[in-house]
């Protein structure tokens, strides 16, 4: 579980996030939604420590992330998997080497065990026969799958996905959503997904946080959405603009 308490961050003299409070439970997809420029990506970067908020607390299962020393943060991060918006695959490594990378760095597995684990992860994301291809040789959807496979190669407790559907066609988007949902449930991990894809929100939004102009505007789940839209003009406008 991740608890976010009164998080605020100012970048370049501009307040980007203001007093964000949230709780992200394991086993369900937690969605952070909002228009472009609302602060979603900054929020996600704060959660994983790529940016340091000036205010508030981020608590990973009783560990106050922001008060940890650098080495302690790095230790905690070994339990984190992240799917980046632009995939962030290592372009000089093949698909197999990308997925194997965290295993090489942090596990004591031998070559055979690593290969077995890599194939297991790749088959979990339905990606076979692409082991020796480079990221530049595969499609956007395949890159996302490799990113997910790499993120789950080690036994993680937290998964962060920054716009997992960006640049994908609707069909592939649905596949990626289903994959993230399945992994979240199977591994019982805390998953936080940044998205402005309304299909994703309606399909898998168990816990949804709507960020508007850097502040938490609404929180609920997919079944509350219609009621919330009727009462909340900003949320309604965002939905209408997104479809």
């Amino acid at each position: 579980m991740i608890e976010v308490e009164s998080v605020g961050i100012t970048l370049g003299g501009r307040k980007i996030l203001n007093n964000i409070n949230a709780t992200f439970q394991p086993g369900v997809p937690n969605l952070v939604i909002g228009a472009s420029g609302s602060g979603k990506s900054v929020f996600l970067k704060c959660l994983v420590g790529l940016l340091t908020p000036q205010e508030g607390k981020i608590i990973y299962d009783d560990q106050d992330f922001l008060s940890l020393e650098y080495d302690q943060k790095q230790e905690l991060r070994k339990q984190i998997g992240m799917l980046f918006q632009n995939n962030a695959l290592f372009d000089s490594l093949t698909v197999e080497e990308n997925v194997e990378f965290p295993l090489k760095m942090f596990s004591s597995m031998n070559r055979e065990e690593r290969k077995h684990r890599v194939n297991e992860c790749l088959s979990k994301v339905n990606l076979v026969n692409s082991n020796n291809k480079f990221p530049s040789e595969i499609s956007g959807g395949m890159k996302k799958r490799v990113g997910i496979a790499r993120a789950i190669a080690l036994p993680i407790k937290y998964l962060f996905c920054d716009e997992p559907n960006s640049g994908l066609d609707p069909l592939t988007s649905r596949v990626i959503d289903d994959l993230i949902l399945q992994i979240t449930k199977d591994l019982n991990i805390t998953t936080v997904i940044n998205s402005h894809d309304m299909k994703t929100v309606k399909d898998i939004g168990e816990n949804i946080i709507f960020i508007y102009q850097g502040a938490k505007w609404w929180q609920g789940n997919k079944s509350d959405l219609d009621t919330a839209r009727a009462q909340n003009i900003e949320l309604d406008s965002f939905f209408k603009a997104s479809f």
Partner: protein
Amino acid sequence: MNFFTEIGRFMIFMKYVLKRPQKWSVFWKITFREMHNIGIESLVVVALIAFFLGAVTTIQTANQLLTPSDLFPTQLIPKFVVGSVVSTSAILELAPTITCLVLAGKVGANIASEIGNKKISEQIDAYEVMGINSASFVALPKIIAGLIMIPSLIIAANFLLMTGGAVATKFTSALSFDDLIEGARMVFHPEYVEIMLIKSFIFSFIITSLSSYQGYYTEGGALEVGAAGTYAVTRICIFILFFDLVIAQIFLGL
């Protein structure tokens, strides 16, 4: 960003870079690959430049010292002096400084662009989120590889400079091969080699650390990656020449 802020940021960067690698086997594998990239792939360009530089320095020095002029109608300077000048220049200046200025363009720009590209494509963030010390992971193998390979290139450049000079004596009647070698032997001091090695290690560190730093803090897109390479080369050249002066003053200043 002002000069002192930049120095502070560089020190913080180096604090993270000089941490113990998280996995030695991976570290050495990357370091050996970098040694190949920095050393072996630069060998031809360094060899060519050193050879031609040695030849040109020999011909020009011979021309200046041995050509009779109105002021000195007869030759007053012994021919072996040319060998002394060429060999001393090669050891103290041409091999370490010129080689490193060339490597600033080749290796420095390459490192800055490579790391800058990793930065803008979020690969550095990916390392960090995985729990890897990204600064150390991307920069330390390059710095260690540079500290091993660049001094080796400089030593090779030294021999090739003298070889270039020796070959040049075959094309000029003003100076013989024996004059060149005799001059080189007469003024040889082991301390000169020590100074050359000190320079080579300092310059190697400047090339690899500054270019890594420049790449690591790249922000923006492809344009900024290109700019990072250019900034890196400019700064490396300035720092190399500055430290060249400092070392010359410390060890050779009268």
